């Protein structure tokens, strides 16, 4: 464990898990860098029509 602790986190992947992680970290006072290989975040969930079991729109 390093002595000089940085107050920042890198989140790799901008799907639903990455987005949630990034939001929670940012709300807890940490700077977040998000890295995503495609041109937009959203991941697979953005391509789903609706979601189980509430039939909510995934968007």
């Amino acid at each position, binding site marked *: 464990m390093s002595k000089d602790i940085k107050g920042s986190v890198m989140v790799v992947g901008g799907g*639903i898990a990455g987005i*949630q992680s990034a939001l929670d970290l940012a709300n807890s006072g940490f700077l977040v860098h998000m890295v995503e290989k495609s041109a937009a975040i959203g991941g697979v969930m953005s391509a789903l029509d609706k979601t189980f079991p509430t039939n909510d729109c995934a968007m």
Partner: protein
Amino acid sequence: MESIEGDAGNFTVTVRERPRYVDMDKCIACGICAERCPRKVKDEYNQGLAKRKAIYVQYPQAVPLKYVIDADHCIYFKKKGRCRACEKYCPADAIDFTQKEKIHKIQVGSVVLSTGFKSFDPSGYDVFGYGSLPNVITSMEFERILSASGPFQGHLQRPSDDKPPQKIAWLQCVGSRDLHAGCHEYCSSVCCMYAIKEAVIAKEHAGGDLDTAIFFMDMRTPGKEFDKYYDRARDEVGVRFIRSRVHSIELAGHGSDDLRIIYMSEDGKLKKEIFNLVVLSTGLEISEDVRKLAQDLGIELDLHGFAKTSSFTPVATSRPGVFACGAFTGPKDIPQSVMEASAASSACAVLLADSRNTLTQEKTYPSEDPIIYEEPRIGVFVCHCGINIGGVVDVPAVRDYAETLPNVVYVADNMFTCSQDTQGLIRDAVKENRLNRVVVAACTPRTHEPLFQETIRDGGLNPYLFEFANIRDQDAWVHQKEPEKATEKAKDLVRMSVAKAALLEPIEPLLLGNRHEAMVVGGGAAGMIAALDLADQGLKTFIVEQKGKLGGNAKYVRKTWKGEDGRAFLADLIGRVQGHKQIEVLLDTKISHVSGFVGNFTTTVTTGSAEQELEHGIIILAVGAKPLKPDEYLYGQNERVMRWHELEELFEKEPERLEQAEAVAFIQCVGSREPERPYCSKFCCTSSLQQAIDFKTRKPDLNIYILYRDIRTYGQREELYRKARELGVIFIRYSLDKKPVVEETSVDGKDKLKITVKDHILGIPLELHVDYLNLATAIIARGEEELAKMLKVPLNEDGFFLEAHMKLRPVDFATDGIFVCGLAHYPKPLEESIVQAKAAAARAASVLIKESVEVEPTVSVVDQEKCIGCGLCEASCPFGAIHLVKVPGRGYRAENISALCKGCGICAAACPQKAIDMKHFRDRQIHAMIEAGGRR
């Protein structure tokens, strides 16, 4: 991402940014470039069912909404310098072919890997004809076909001839639970759910006549509310469920695009049925890229390519300081991914707690423009919500109608009003049209009001100058067969909202001091993990436990399904909790009263006869659950009938019993998945299999029977199922209408149990003679109605706490500052309880670290001129939020205590002088709504 150097707390990460060839600051996402681009490419986002251009945005709601050039297909890059159409036509001068790859070195304290999954590609799997038969498609392709923003605008049609199919089949476990080369042994955990959903939605789109059939081996719907959806799909919507493994698919005949499915029914007969479209429920897998990345970063993977994690530290990878969440650690659904994501953020926060707030800055808003005090200028935004609203309500008609209403100066309709780009449109519209009130007609204010309030705040308006019209949840969705009446209703609702909007007034925020202590209710594994994650961040935490010791149900977990030692873990956990300076454990303690609100709770607890008050900022509910004591199968009447861990404890204490036994049986779903308790207890299958494997390994000639309805070893737990079968454990399926019958008997003078059950494969009743029977009984809620009432949080029909949103807010409640985790939320295995506990800690910490909390300022206001100091309001308020104060020279007058006020308005209704009014729900605002609504 290229590499990570350094240690936990201080990493240097190298990332390679690929060029977009579009200047992000200049691009205005007008789309002219894509219109002019001559090069058409298969659109991966739409699973290749549609085309996009070589310059494109992934999807219309993409974030960031900026175009990008696909250099692999762009003519400029393929044919050295040709074309440049986009550059020529771009009005913003945003195209930049000179962009080069950039290497960034970024210093961070920790890393979260949420690299996700890729769908299994069934091309190499020739039995199902994917790739050669056009009407055999994957589930992801079907998602796009159903989607309103998809290639067919949500019209249900099949690829070969664009005709609407009349019969659709889903084939489960494609690439999963399959030992063939190229396939995966594990269960992908999500396919049963999405297949049922797709069948239900397809029937909804097609409107009645569509026949849907799902071919499956075990129906695995173990999550919260999942079985209810399954039951409804089967019994009410009429989706057919066929238990079988499909043998092959072939063309139905010469010149036909239809497909014949040849399958083996459960009783062993070969059957055939013709369908118009076949959807392959493809599983989840880890892509080669991610495997390589993990290798480069030094992250250990399991043999399936998922990140190796322990059940006790489910988001920690093999490399300290690097965490993982989502499908990277195993196939899982959205709620579980969201929980893991929060859990990973908690793990980071614990690691980096000392450097919190060193690199961040607070968000600032533009100052509120005084135009809000002028004459009302209302903007109305009507949402299509894909086809959710637009498919029923005539959205353009509602928009045009809104334009005719008084004070409305701007109207628009949007595909998804909640999308990032539309937020920009709303902000711009507010500025350009000097709007000072905004109405959105869309889903429901309960989920989306905060988003739009934030948007108009960014646009310089006070957030309370916003009003919602609920035309989805309470209109389009519930009047699907009456589009005209639904449109009328939408118009009425918009008119009512506009009437109220005209009378809205700005409300100043209410900031209150915040306590930094936490109270965790329940000292089981979930409660202790949550407490430790908070305490390790320096936050003082109380654990309130009813019983005399810590541990809860975790003490029954001898081993996790991965084989880790549960007891050693629990002992270590209890030791850490008891030794922690920031944790105060209150045993034998009950909660008798809770008052206050987020940031400022006061809880009265009693330990024996002693009473004390705890002051804290948040509450985490981890009260656990308990196994059902059944009144069937001779439980409680014959000592050879046991439940859950009783049998393995017996064998541990008296090993000779196992030695002497000839046969044991397990009955699954005892009291679960029945009309009385229509839910699955989720980890009983895994638990029984673990025990069966353990017994069989210790005594190979022991006969073990598992009587089950569906084996639900989801995810990598499928390994256990395979292993148990390999070891010779016998699985016998029974159905709810023909439950096994257990009787006492004796064989050769030895006491035995006789179990009679109808075997579905042989079709005849079997008689089993066993020495012991172990029942996997339902996990039931403890009956926390009183606690729920005290905290004003809801329980579901089964008595488990009901979270704010099943997928996106799995540990929160609608009431701020209260969180849930562990079995109190729903039955789940230990590792999932731990994930949820860490998630609850993450959400709680984000509240606790704040200096002040903002509370809803929609409270009551007293007109002291009208008030006569009678005190009826004080007597009527259920929250103690209004009281009389002495006003010099005028006697007593009522005064509101904003922090306690929930804005219910009972005082306003009770005031004989009509001296009390509610902010944001003022008398005249409600009158205006009534008056506008009644108009014909």
